[in-house]
């Protein structure tokens, strides 16, 4: 099976859906973060795929965007984990069901 654009798009949408499902259904804050990271990875994969199967030779835009996205994702994960720890210290739980401080 030769790799085609469709294949990568299917893969990335599957990855996105898995990530979304994790972000929506897991109860532990860290798993929600992991889900969000998976969605980001899916978006990165899309960039790479469109770049790779677009007109060649092209400047390495897709790779550049993805590398930046990975860098930002790392920073975001650091902030996210810090938030989880801060929330844990404050509320003594990381179960997202028990946290409703955003209530109006």
């Amino acid at each position, binding site marked *: 099976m030769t790799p085609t654009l469709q294949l990568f798009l299917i893969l990335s949408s599957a990855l996105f859906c898995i990530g979304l499902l994790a972000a929506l259904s897991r109860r532990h804050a860290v798993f929600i973060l992991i889900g969000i990271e998976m969605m980001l990875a899916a978006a990165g994969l899309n960039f790479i795929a469109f770049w790779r199967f677009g007109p060649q030779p092209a*400047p390495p835009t897709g790779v550049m965007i993805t590398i930046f996205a990975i860098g930002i994702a790392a920073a975001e994960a650091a902030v996210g984990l810090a938030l989880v720890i801060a929330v844990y210290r404050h509320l003594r739980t990381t179960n997202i069901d028990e946290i*409703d401080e955003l*209530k109006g």
Partner: protein
Amino acid sequence: MSSWIVSHLWLIPSVPLAMALVVLSLTNSQQRLAAALAVAGQVVALLFSLGAFVATLPTPGYRAVQNFTWFTFGEQALRLGFVLDPLTAVMLVMITFVSLWIFVFSIGYMAEDAHFTRFFAYLSFFSAAMLGVVIANSLLLLFICWELVGLASYLLIGFWIHKPSAAAAAKKAFITTRIGDIGFFIGMLWLYGRTGTLLFYDGGKGALESAALLSLGAAATWIALLIFCGAAGKSGQFPLHVWLPDAMEGPTPVSALIHAATMVAAGVFLVARVYPLFSLGEIHGVTTSLTVVVWIGVITALMSALIAVAQADIKRILAYSTVSQLGLMMVSLGVGGVAAGIMHLLAHGFFKALLFLGSGSVIHGCHEEQDIRKMGGLRRVMPVTFLTYAIGMMALSGVPLFFSGAWTKEEILHATSLWSASHLPHYFMLLGVVLTALYMTRQMIYVFFGSRGSASNHAHESSPVMTMPLIVLATCAIVFSLVLTPAWPWLHSYLSGERPALNWSLLITPTLYVSLVLVVIGIGLGVLIYRGARETDPVERALPPVFRFLENRMWLDELYDWTVLALARFAARLSDFLDRYLWDGLFRLGSTLVGFFGTLTKGFDERAINGGVNEATDWACGLGRGIARRHSGQVQTYLGAIAIAMVALFIFYAWLT
């Protein structure tokens, strides 16, 4: 098979890695299967390594390289590769062999642990990462595997995660080595900027080959020193050695693995691998970067040997002994004895694994007691452990003729005496030999001789699955010396790409008498001082301030606490202060101003507008109450709403087109 494995070198780390993944997916009730898989992975890796080793034997100075393109980036192609040369081959065999016996030992040692399978998965992962470091032909690939080793060590040191001290030690190891790795990374980028390649050997175009080295010029010194930062972090060289003794918080097989076969070997291996960078522009074998390596090694070796004399924890003594031996290896590399340094690394791998596993057996027998002052008289209760431990101790102290450590130490001392820059390292290393013999004698007397202590009353010999690795490694510590002697320096010639010659007259050299005298002084002093010693240390009684100083590890941890960590804490407090008062203050100022204007307009609002608006507000109130009911404060509900809205938007868009 051996030519096949040369072209499939990547299989060697892949097998343990695959086993790690499989074992990780097992449940904890499948302990036998997990252990069997992990051990099988090591056996296969060992067989492959032996195949690769055999392939390098026929041609002196053998080197096989396979490079491939990882990805193309515009004009640049990033290439990785694998290399097989004598250095790689001996490291492969040593790592897989020692790891295999540590794995076997762990079956007995960890038998009652609740996370048995996870432990074996991590062990396999660790060995895979280390094998990756050894076969890498690209500084980048080496760095990736290097970081994986760091991750694995973090997981294993902090294996007993419920112990706060273990979690702290894991964090300390990870962060301390990371400080060195920043230097390594910058050096790597610099090297890439100057030479345009990170491959070591590439048919004349690699970074370690003459064309690239010539283009480096004076920058090579700095690049070499930056890379040495990484090596110093991993190999526990001063001033980044503080993590190594704390790493004893992990289970004992982990200590054996980290201190003998894998992690600490990585730093010495790295320096040996990029040695052309260090020796570029040498005058009589002396360069600036090599001189730094020598003196860092000397400081590390002496300092930790001194500290080891005043420690009470059986594993900590061995830990400082490791730091000291690594310093010795660095000195050897720095004075130009690359082969001698690597030989000592290999010999040390065998006998230090033996000593750590022996200490594990002692700890296990004494019901998890680690304080040597509470042990004693164990030689009758644990005869196998005692005999193998004694062999390891004599190999480490360098008792001449029969033990591998003695020959390699001899070689290093010989190399240091030939260094043209200064003779001081040679004399310091001689002192180091005395100290090594002294602290090992102290440990032996406390643990195995004398009367029974409180912890050794109910001691028992360990099960065969734990004593068998001890016997095998002890045999190795003796038999390994066959290829080390100056009469038939097979390993030395193999590593430096020559043909060995048999010459019996070289077996007994004058330096042999020197080291014999030194070892006898060390052991004699040890027996003299510590004979019949109990509870309070004789040195402590005689020289309390010196003992305190050494016992507290020269207060280096405290020094770091007052300087580096204090700076970090200050920065944290400053940010907290700015957050709390400066930014918050500005925000409050703004809100007060808004509040003030609000008060001004209040009167007008209340009289003129209110009446008309009341009608509308009632309606808005009702709407708000309705929406507030949806407003649960649950993040995931919001997230779900966003997702549904996205899907709705897509459908709308599809409908439009």
